[in-house]
């Protein structure tokens, strides 16, 4: 049993809906995103890469890769960061002391955020799913594949709302699952494979 996610980059239109769905479902505080949609090549958000007339624009949604050899797990001083048996890397906010060792160890940028001080929210009532985590001061937070939703038999929040149907989620150890068949049938890419972390987010190119 190992959860993995596949993102079809041909279908992704860079609308940021997954990012906002994640933010709302997990009741994330101000200035925090667990999932960011980056623009490939351009100088900023929604800018084309290349020089006129040879320009192109493509997007790359990046969240926690839930690596098989997660480098963030052994560096955690309190073992707050642990890998579950199904491959999901979670941060226990009651043990995390916000030392930032996992941020330094992670080869992917923008995956995790440190709550600096008491988290602030845009609204004064709680949003999102009933299983949304509590947000505590001075704690590192990141994508957890919506573990609360998975336990209730639902899919992660970013999957549900994707207008382009670009995301696939499932058990990669099961050869008959949709995601395993998709990865076998198409050309896939993983970010920074040379680091040996074996990420579990596959990009279908």
């Amino acid at each position, binding site marked *: 049993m190992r959860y993995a996610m596949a993102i079809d980059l041909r279908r992704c239109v860079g609308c940021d809906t997954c990012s906002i769905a994640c933010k709302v479902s997990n009741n994330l505080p101000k200035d925090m995103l667990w999932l960011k949609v980056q623009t490939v090549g351009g100088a900023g958000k929604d800018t084309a890469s290349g020089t006129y007339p040879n320009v192109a624009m493509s997007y790359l949604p990046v969240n926690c890769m839930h690596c098989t050899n997660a480098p963030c797990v*052994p*560096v*955690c*001083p*309190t*073992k*707050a960061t*642990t890998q579950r048996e199904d491959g999901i890397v979670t941060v226990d906010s009651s*043990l995390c*002391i916000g*030392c*930032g*060792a996992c*941020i*330094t160890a992670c080869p992917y*940028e*923008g995956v995790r*955020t*440190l709550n*600096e001080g008491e988290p602030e929210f845009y609204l004064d009532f709680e949003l999102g799913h009933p299983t949304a985590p509590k947000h505590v001061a001075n704690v590192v937070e990141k994508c957890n594949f919506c573990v609360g939703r998975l336990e209730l038999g639902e899919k992660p929040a970013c999957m549900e709302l994707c207008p382009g149907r670009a995301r696939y989620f499932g058990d990669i150890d099961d050869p008959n699952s949709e995601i395993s068949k998709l990865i076998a049938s198409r050309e896939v890419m993983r970010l920074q494979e040379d680091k040996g972390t074996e990420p579990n987010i596959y990009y279908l190119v």
Partner: protein
Amino acid sequence: MGLLLKVLTTPGEFHPFIDLNHCVNRKQRWLQCSACMDICPKQVYDKTQAEKPNWTECQNCGLCVSACSARCIAPSTPNVRRHLQLTKGQETVTISCKDHEVANSHTEPCLANLPWEYLAYLALDKKVVLNMTGCGTCPHKECVALLSKQLTELKSFFGEEEFAARIEMCRQEAKAGEAAQLSRRDLFRTGLQKTAQGAVQLTGESDNFISGMAYRKLLADRVRTIYTETAPQNRKPYYMHLPWFQTECYGCGNCAKLCPNQAIEIGEEVDGKRLISVTPWRCVGCGVCTAVCRENGVQGNRRVKIPYLDKLPMTHVAAKSCHRCGRPMKPDTEGDYCASCKQKLKKR
């Protein structure tokens, strides 16, 4: 009626009281401690220590108090009162367990339930005789192991010679109570009065909460008094096992944050150096600092010669701070900002 209610509702009145916020297992997951579970004869303590212990089974023996590696279990008030009886009276204190009682001796359920800090405190002023007649044949191996651990700590604290002069372990029942008089008694005559005052203070605190560190505090206070009252040439050193900081340490402060008793203090950066200080009476040698250091900056405990048990500067380490958040970084980090701040600044 009001008084009775107060007594009944005071934590730690008829059983030891565990402060789970200071428990090693609540601080981190690398080092899993099960000392209280292993020593308890009645399975009072929960496996994960996630829930409240089952106090209805508790016999109030007090073994968990001396077994706790983080000293987060506070002794119960009756036990404290009984222990403090030892500070009054004769120059020689004989302590025996309830199965091998002798004349003129103080009886405990087990010798191991006196924490070594308290034995050390007693031995500073008196001759302590431990009647260990039954220990060789005792069926409770955990208690014997705990007692030998306590005595090793005690021996290490005083050093071999001082230990032999202050503490006697007798194995024959007839011999108990006839131990030699302490020659240094004149030196500590004034101290004895202060001991009685300290006892009153300690029991006075029982209305609120006696911390598991109370005996250590008592020892530290006594050692400080002796240090100030003794002439410099007559001062005797003490030895304790304190965290051994290596050159890999850059003062990240994780050990200071996670230490159950706040023994470690890391100073501000001054000229690229940080001063690390340790308070020996707060350091219980639980090993959390070694377990949580991911840079091998603390490698176990080392026996250190100390003049008293108050805060001591240990070592200077190379330091570099993030220019935005001020947190310590590794000295070989590129740039002026830590990884977290780099990402936050990049977004803007």
